[in-house]
């Protein structure tokens, strides 16, 4: 692990447990991510990767443990105790640091591309409409869709929708970006255009990025750290070279063998 800002992790999860009914999705999970790092979470379906992102975005609560973002407590639940009531104001302040892009895009279908991007900056961050629109155009340019500014989501391809969704999340200027299998619903060709946007983004910003993906080749070139998960626990983590070339754990080896053979 790098020494850079080593004392102040951007994301810190301690002993986090989470179950859906009887199914334990996360088991005593511990990890931290330093600021500006690009981290890829890989592992079989149901291993709890997406749940981590959803907890960080406050879309799911936790059963026990502690979750911190920028050294501020987002969740802290003692085992067996009822979840403490967190002031919405506090959660909202932390949530403002985090942005998320979803597998199914989740654009607002009743708004134009421009309004999809400006709506939150104007009504949540309360910046002026002019500034929000200028910013939106910048981000649309970044994802290569400046010409779609007045289009509606229904008029876009899946790849374009996802790129708008990326611009929409960026417009809130988060410190941490979460990408939840953002190319899984796309044809390879459309996935490629989304990945190229992401690759650019990873190179040019100092945002902390956490990516859940099934595309091993992309994880390898995008991330500076790979976390391999199975059954709600971290099996192995390390640099892409280490994980992909010399995995220590048998389970990592067999997983990589299966998925790399399939592609």
């Amino acid at each position: 692990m790098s020494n850079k800002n080593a004392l102040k992790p951007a994301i810190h999860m301690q002993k986090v447990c989470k179950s859906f009914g009887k199914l334990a999705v996360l088991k005593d999970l511990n990890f931290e991510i330093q600021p500006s790092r690009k981290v890829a979470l890989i592992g079989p379906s149901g291993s709890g990767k997406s749940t981590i992102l959803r907890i960080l975005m406050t879309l799911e609560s936790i059963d026990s443990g502690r979750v911190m973002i920028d050294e501020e407590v987002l969740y802290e639940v003692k085992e067996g105790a009822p979840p403490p009531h967190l002031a919405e104001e506090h959660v909202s302040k932390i949530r403002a640091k985090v942005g998320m892009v979803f597998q199914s895009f989740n654009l607002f279908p009743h708004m134009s591309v421009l309004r999809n991007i400006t709506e939150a900056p104007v009504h949540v961050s309360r910046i002026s409409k002019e500034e929000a629109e200028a910013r939106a155009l910048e981000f649309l340019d970044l994802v290569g869709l400046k010409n779609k500014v007045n289009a509606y989501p229904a008029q876009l391809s899946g790849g374009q929708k996802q790129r708008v969704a990326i611009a929409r999340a960026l417009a809130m200027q988060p410190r941490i970006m979460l990408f939840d299998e953002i190319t899984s619903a796309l044809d390879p060709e459309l996935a490629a255009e989304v990945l190229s946007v992401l690759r650019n983004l990873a190179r040019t910003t100092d945002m902390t990025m956490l990516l859940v993906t099934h595309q091993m080749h992309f994880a390898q070139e995008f991330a500076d750290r790979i976390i391999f998960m199975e059954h709600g626990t971290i099996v192995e983590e390390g640099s892409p070279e280490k994980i992909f070339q010399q995995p220590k754990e048998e389970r990592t080896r067999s997983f990589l063998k299966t998925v790399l053979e399939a592609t």
Partner: protein
Amino acid sequence: MSEIFGWLPNLLSGLKTTLLLTVGATFVACPMALAAGLARLSRNPFFYGPAVCYIEVFRGTSALIQLFWFYYVLPHFGFQMEALTAGILVLGLNIGAYGAEVVRGAVQSVPREQYEAAKALNFSKMQTMKKIILPQAFVAILPPAGNLLIELLKSTALVSMITITELTFKGQMLRASTLKSTEIFGIILILYFLLALSITHGIRKLERRFSYVKV
């Protein structure tokens, strides 16, 4: 033919009352449907409790008995009102109860992912409802709302039972004095039909205006 012109002033004044009842009741029904429909979705019993009571009572009892209650029974408890007021209130509350279920269904039809996207952008719950969910639900509300409005128009004839002389009642009075059932009820049938047609047309226009799948 000249006979028909003789009836017109009577029929038109009845038509005016029917329109007044329909429009007035719509103004009662829309806010009731929205408020009760949303309250019904709340997890807070102080909201959904009253909403469920309202919806079930007004859907589950006959509109005619409700009219009798508002006009003949409530005065015994000190609530006296004009027949027209009672008519507008009862019809509005009645359609509002059906409308509440339409609103609830439409709001629930908006995918969960839309709430999640809104939350990820840090919208408050209020903003999420107002800016993200309701505009999408509105499109789904329109077709069944058109149905309910036509239903409302036709049920205005009920209020003749509490002394209001709307279109149907006027027709009956004319029939009693002229015995020309076919002509009179023929005209009335056409008038109702034209009104219903204009409601359908108006809703279509709204649907086109607010449809967001502009491909």
